[in-house]
């Protein structure tokens, strides 16, 4: 974005909120960014947008979150927003089997339109409606493991696990990004910086350098 010059954060991560219509995406977003929940909110037409800045491992991270209309027909517009996203928050409703079954279709959608390294968080929302539950925690865990996703059950209504879910995905993204940054740094230091006698970052990266030497 063009406000590079005056930014007040160390990292900016773009995250997309996806999943069937009615699972609670818009309320998860409003709960996370404004601590608001509404039992009668409007259905999302097109895309919505909100941000929140928080601390992840001592760094200031700004999450830029795109909320999308869930209905299949809208993917014609919404899939453009997957581009550049480093994280996806994939939501289903624990009281609606179909929304869980469609998780596979959403994953396919991500494979087709998003970066292959995108970090995905699976969220089983409406955990407050336990008496109406039709998707067990166990089967969702199994699927998340199989697909390599993080997983939590959430309630936007009761504000359960919403912050935790976002923290989890942001931390995971942060690790990947900082590993990449580190790798770039190493590449730079390997390729002749030392010869020039520069010792920038040597103090804190030397141990890491050794580790990665052995592991690759």
């Amino acid at each position, binding site marked *: *974005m*063009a*406000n590079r010059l005056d930014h007040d954060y160390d990292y900016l991560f773009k995250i997309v909120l996806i999943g069937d219509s*009615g699972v609670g995406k818009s309320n998860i977003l409003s709960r996370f960014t404004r601590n608001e929940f509404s039992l009668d909110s*409007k259905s999302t*037409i097109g895309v919505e947008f909100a941000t929140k800045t928080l601390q992840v491992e001592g760094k200031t991270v700004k999450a830029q979150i795109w909320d999308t209309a869930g209905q299949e*027909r809208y993917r*014609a*517009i919404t899939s453009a927003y997957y581009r550049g996203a480093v994280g996806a928050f994939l939501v289903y409703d624990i009281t609606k089997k179909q929304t869980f079954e469609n998780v596979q279709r959403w994953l396919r959608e991500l494979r087709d339109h998003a970066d292959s390294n995108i970090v995905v968080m699976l969220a089983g929302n409406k955990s407050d409606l336990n008496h109406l539950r039709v998707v067990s925690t166990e089967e969702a865990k199994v699927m998340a493991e199989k697909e390599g996703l993080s997983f939590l059950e959430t309630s936007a209504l009761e504000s359960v696990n919403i912050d935790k879910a976002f923290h989890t995905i942001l931390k995971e993204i942060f690790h990947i990004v900082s590993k990449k940054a580190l790798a770039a740094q190493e590449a730079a230091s390997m390729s002749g910086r030392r010869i020039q006698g520069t010792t920038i970052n040597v103090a804190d990266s030397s141990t890491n350098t050794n580790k990665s030497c052995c592991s690759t």
Partner: protein
Amino acid sequence: MEEKKRTDEFEAGTAPPSRLNNREERRVQKWRKMIGTGGSDWKYYVRRKPNVVKRRIRKGIPDCLRGLVWQLISGSRDLLLMNPGVYEQLVIYETSASELDIIRDISRTFPSHVFFQQRHGPGQRSLYNVLKAYSVYDRDVGYVQGMGFLAGLLLLYMSEEDAFWLLVALLKGAVHAPMEGLYQAGLPLVQQYLFQFEQLVKEHLPKLGRHFDEEMINPSMYASQWFITVFSYSFPFPLALRIWDVFLYEGVKIVFQIGLALLSSCHDNLMKLSFEKLIHALRNFPDEAMNPDSLLPNAFSIKLSKRLIELEKQYNDRNGVSSHKQVKQPRLSRKAS
């Protein structure tokens, strides 16, 4: 027409009945004369004095006559008369694959409007019926989110059956070009409108257009709802209604004009904002900017007809669409199967 339908959180700006002065009464009288009893003189009047009609509509249709006039100018009244019993057939005897999708969205359509607030109340039931009927009437399109806001707005001014036929008139194109492409697979008309709008912003507001480019703002981020729901999704009702008066008579051009007029009225402020604040501002225009009495005249002064056609052609050439409108004929007198 039930009065309770119109009382709404957004209605604060309209004139209370006590201020309904002589001038207003004379205006209604003129309109009544123009329409004739039950709309009997309308067609004659429009043919003889189309510009008088246009001018009067641009000033706003009197609220007490709005429902009737909307049906006359949209061509939906004719559809209703040509298809007796069809609506009932669609509502009562047919089943739709979209029923659950529709139900899921009913309470999420104008949730803060009294007419639609009551769960399973008359407002919600009518809304369900109209949407279900349409999803059966055109099974290819079915039900798509956004339609509810069109149907909802219409239901504030007319019966279910009338609202249904007005929806048909709009989407199948009784008077103007069909708008079903807003809801067909791939949302082709939304994509076309967004392309046209982006070009128009660059041409009419070049500085702002460049600023948007630099900030990586494109119209799909803020204007999709304008087109998909014709400003009914999130704009104050008094403004939405005035836009609909013109929209039904003159066509979709007014949506582009209003969009440009809005951007233009906030131009200097928008120029100062960066990405995030821009998106916020483009979704929350200040009240002054949304005053119909200044916004509409500004919108009318923007001349677009020719350019819109050129841009449509340009879009279709680019996308290899050869005037699909001729290919797909509106099926206006289709009977329920």
